[in-house]
């Protein structure tokens, strides 16, 4: 297939006998592989385990909050639970998930390349991830860490509990993130297929490119911050200790300089996945391709200037609060552009009815609602009431669960046939999708309300007046957990006995669908030449109506 040809719908689906999965056997072939697809699969497995671990901590927190008083655990255990929930979910699942799994697996395929630019560095990134994960999780054994995932001194540096293993773990995870970002930037710059200019790359590749820029430029700062917190805790240098002249608010500047761009590291890849998936599901050209591509870069750069809106009530001066608030408003505009263009892509499309579309509808609603509550929280006067309450918790879960995990699920359902060559059961996928969307709403809408009522974050015991909403939220979270269990079941079933998917089950025009699924060890039998714009679905030589809104 030299030309980017229209996928032949009628040829019977065939499962290639030799592919990257069984090209060479043995555990050593997996652990020392240089194949970006295998590294992607190993990332996939470890990221799912981390999601399970984080989910268990989440359920522990939710069960504890069923009653105002102590329910199933003591105060210190509860503090450890929500801290570990934060650390595991953010550093071990959200940040590495989509870039690590689908960035590794799909991005080189989308570029028409044989592999990433530095395969050995890619494997190093996976090993760094595993080491960091083991160290971070080991914090439970060394007495647990109860400082919250933000490690604010002076509490984090004076608490009797050992935060050191977790800090070292995050330091190592930072390097894994830098190395992945660096690898992807160089790959996108150098290994694009002939004919693929920057404007013919798929939108997922644009999103991964923007994410990698943030990963490379922001992560060193958290590496230094975590190192300083560790030194401060062990050696008492007094950098953030007011008794020795330090300023605790300075740590917050250090921490959020990384952590705000980090939230864009999490959300940008899932936006890229949705851009690709919407074009494939609606079988239509992307509405405003340049706008979506440039808004990814816009979010990447302007996201670096807005970290101060996490510190509106921390004692920051009114001038700086105002400056950060204005800049945060501009970051919101880029997300709004993306949403309008996604909905525009659906206009006059040929939308296929499948589970992915249920997720996409949920994704659109949650991105808009989560995003605009973010803008609401960035309005300074409202933040005085909302800061550190459950309103903020609900906002970032709307973005993290609503947008990022929904995007992760869309990516799984979209590329599962390409990764494993088998198809999952569409009916069960629809059922679990509705469970997930409804469970999500039932979990986090009550948290918005209890946040409005004034319930602060990280509360082990709370006044009775907040109990009703907390019970509703716990009920919602169990529904959400149930939805994830169904997904796990039918995906594992499909892995073993799913029907053969064939090269291009979705009839998508993505470059990654030009090769067999699961793809050969060297990706493409014949080198790919790109002649058309990406996501363009008209058949060659067919005249199609051009509409300009």
């Amino acid at each position, binding site marked *: 297939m030299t030309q980017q040809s229209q996928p032949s719908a009628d040829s019977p689906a065939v499962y290639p006998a030799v592919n990257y999965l069984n090209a060479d056997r043995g555990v050593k072939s997996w652990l020392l592989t240089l194949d970006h697809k295998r590294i992607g699969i190993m990332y996939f497995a470890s990221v799912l385990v981390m999601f399970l671990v984080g989910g268990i901590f989440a359920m522990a927190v939710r069960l504890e909050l069923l009653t105002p008083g102590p329910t199933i655990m003591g105060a210190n255990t509860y503090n450890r639970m929500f801290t570990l929930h934060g650390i595991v979910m953010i550093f071990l699942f959200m940040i590495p998930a989509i870039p690590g799994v689908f960035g590794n697996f799909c991005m080189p395929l989308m570029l028409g390349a044989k592999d990433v*630019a530095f395969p050995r560095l890619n494997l190093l990134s996976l090993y760094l991830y595993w080491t960091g994960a083991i160290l971070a999780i080991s914090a439970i054994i060394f007495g647990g860490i109860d400082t919250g995932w933000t490690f604010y001194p002076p509490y984090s540096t004076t608490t009797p509990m050992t935060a050191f293993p977790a800090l070292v773990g995050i330091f190592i995870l930072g390097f894994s993130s830098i190395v992945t970002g660096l*690898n992807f930037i*160089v790959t996108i710059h150098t*290994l694009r297929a002939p004919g693929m200019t920057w404007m013919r790359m798929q939108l997922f590749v644009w999103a991964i490119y923007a994410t990698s820029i943030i990963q490379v430029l922001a992560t060193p*700062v958290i590496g230094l911050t975590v190192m300083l917190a560790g030194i401060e805790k062990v050696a008492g240098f007094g950098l953030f*200790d007011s008794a020795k002249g330090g300023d605790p608010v*300075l740590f917050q500047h250090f921490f959020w300089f990384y952590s705000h761009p980090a939230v864009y590291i999490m959300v940008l890849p899932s936006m890229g996945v949705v851009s690709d998936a919407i074009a494939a599901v609606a079988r239509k050209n992307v509405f405003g391709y340049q706008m979506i591509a440039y808004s990814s870069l816009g979010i990447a750069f302007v996201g670096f200037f807005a970290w101060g809106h996490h510190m509106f009530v921390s004692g920051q001066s009114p001038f700086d609060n105002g400056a950060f608030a204005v800049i945060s408003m501009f970051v919101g505009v880029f997300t709004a552009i993306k949403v309008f263009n996604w909905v525009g892509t659906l206009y006059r499309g040929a939308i296929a009815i499948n589970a992915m579309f249920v997720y996409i509808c949920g994704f659109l609603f949650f991105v808009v609602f989560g995003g605009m509550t973010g803008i609401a929280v960035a309005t300074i006067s409202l933040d005085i009431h909302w800061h550190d309450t459950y309103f903020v918790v609900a906002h970032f879960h709307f973005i993290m669960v609503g947008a990022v995990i929904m995007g992760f699920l869309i990516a799984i359902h979209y590329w599962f046939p390409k990764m494993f060559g088998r198809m999952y059961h569409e009916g069960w996928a629809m059922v679990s999708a509705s469970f997930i969307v409804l469970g999500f709403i039932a979990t986090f809408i009550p948290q918005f309300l209890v946040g409005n009522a004034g319930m602060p974050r990280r509360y082990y015991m709370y006044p009775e007046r907040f109990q009703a909403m907390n019970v509703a939220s716990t009920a919602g979270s169990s529904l959400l957990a149930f939805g994830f269990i169904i997904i796990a079941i039918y995906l594992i079933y499909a892995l073993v006995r799913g029907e053969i998917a064939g090269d291009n089950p979705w009839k998508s025009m993505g470059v990654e669908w030009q090769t067999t699924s699961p793809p050969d060890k060297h990706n493409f039998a014949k080198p790919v030449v790109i002649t058309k714009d990406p996501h363009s679905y008209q058949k060659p030589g067919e005249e199609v109506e051009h509409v300009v809104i």
Partner: protein
Amino acid sequence: MSSSDEHAHSARHPHLAEHFETIQQQDYAARLGMWLFLGTEVLLFAGLFLGYTVYRHFYHATWHACSQALSLSLGATNTVILISSSLTVALAYWAVKVGKRNLALGLLAFTILCAIAFLCIKYVEYSHKFHVGELPGKWFRAEELMQYPAANMYFTIYFLATGLHAFHVIVGMSVLLWVAKGIWKGRYTPDYFVPVELGALYWHLVDLVWIFLFPLLYLI
């Protein structure tokens, strides 16, 4: 290090990895990867420069007094040493390109010697500070600086910045040793020298950071 993955062998060019089309493409990728890595190093030190400027803003008088306590002569000699080592490593890179293998090895040896000299001077400065008690945090007990508020903060920043920089000097030395071994074994020749360039780039960055650290710590 990104330089470590250029050694897969294929028929087209002895050092061309199979997923690259041409050696120029691979060189371009290696250089871009190295410059990105240098960007992350700059941002790693950015945090310490921020800490320095913030606490200098708070404790202006203390900063002035404490920087007098450092020995300017040792700092200046260190700067000269690093600048000269930067020169010799650049010449070594040039020597490899034009094929003068022994000259390149000699120059690299001189650069590594300069690095060792830098670390020795650093050791002298540190031991003096440990002796006098100009130490960070709770160990600070230098009498004459006691009357300045938060004088320990200056030495916290001093030890963190110069400590991290010394660590990078050690890493830079081992990179240069690796490059020297490559030249010695004849792997880096006039038609394949990019890893030498990357090693030189890393050493220049170490020198670059010291160029900024020296005036801020010793002269203000």
